[in-house]
């Protein structure tokens, strides 16, 4: 009995020493995962995930606190990428998250705008130009379509316009005439 205890104790001491040494020698700091997750997120900063922006959501995912299917602007493809990165199963949208919508940009009806700057304060990416008592304008190229400016507007002059397909942003479609869908 005693010899058994001694043997196990000896093993434990040796292993403990090795691991202790390794813990010092191979110490790692920080979590590079957050940045990797953040790189996949679409950076709309829309808060539809219930976190106050993309980075906080990424942090929450990395900490295992948030599901990967909470980002509607990223679409299913975004979920797939997150699933691949984290080595977890794909999870479809569902529950309390909204389904993805067509990409759009905000548009301010300048005839109605009273220049209150509330939308400017709400815009997470500084995509609205203007000053107090002056008309505001959306810089369309920088608008992420997060809709955060729509609600604060006291005169409802902001609408979301779906980005139309033009020759400049047109994409080739997936060939549909494969065998399974033939006439």
């Amino acid at each position, binding site marked *: 009995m005693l010899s058994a205890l001694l043997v196990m104790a000896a093993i434990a001491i040796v292993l403990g020493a090795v691991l202790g040494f*390794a813990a010092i020698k191979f110490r*790692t700091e920080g979590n590079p*995962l957050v940045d990797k997750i953040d790189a996949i997120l679409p950076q709309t900063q829309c808060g539809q995930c219930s976190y106050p922006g993309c980075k906080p959501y990424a942090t929450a995912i990395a900490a295992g606190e948030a599901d990967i299917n909470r980002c509607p602007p990223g679409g299913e493809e975004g979920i797939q990428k997150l699933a691949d990165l984290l080595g977890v199963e794909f999870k479809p949208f569902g529950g309390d998250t909204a389904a993805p919508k067509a990409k759009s940009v905000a548009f301010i009806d300048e005839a109605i705008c009273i220049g209150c700057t509330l939308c400017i304060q709400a815009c997470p990416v500084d995509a609205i130009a203007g000053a107090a008592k002056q008309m505001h304008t959306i810089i369309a190229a920088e608008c992420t379509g997060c809709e955060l400016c729509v609600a604060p507007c006291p005169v409802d002059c902001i609408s979301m316009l779906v980005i139309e397909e033009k020759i400049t942003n047109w994409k080739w479609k997936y060939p549909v005439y494969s065998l399974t869908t033939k006439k």
Partner: protein
Amino acid sequence: MTEYLLILLSAVFVNNIVMVKILGLCPFMGVSKKLEAAIGMGAATTFVLTLASGSSYLINHYLLGPELSYLTTLSFIVVIAGIVQFTEMVVQKTSPVLYQVLGIYLPLITTNCAVLGIPLLNVQAKHNFMESIFFGMGGALGFTLVMVLFAGMRERMEGADVPAIFKGSAIAMITAGLMSLSFMGFSGLIK
């Protein structure tokens, strides 16, 4: 030397730990979705297994002896756990990406039955120290080999028109089965 080589080859092909002995299926299925992950897992397992075979031989032979043989499994588990912990720290430091890709499967090498199985098989087969090392290394190389091949097949299968209900693990299991079937061709090559 020939005999060591035979032990090695036998462990890699004829008595492949995954395909013939059907051990270590958990990481085999779990970490074979991507080739780089499979290579990393194979390397980590090879490291752990070779080290574990050697140290478990030493423990079994010098520390435990016949009278304490009831401690074999227990002490092997402890040693393997220690080695895995060590490996985990090394991997995390040297290759954070690989660490991320391997995820939970890295610490789970501890419970990889192949890793415990090979030291126990060593004891059972009464291998000496060198034989134990070669058997351990062969087992691990065999594990790595089939895992890498399997990952290659799974990567290719990603684009295949697999029926919906068989997608993912189901077809992977079937593939593993067919691979195992193919490895039966080696049976009888080395006694």
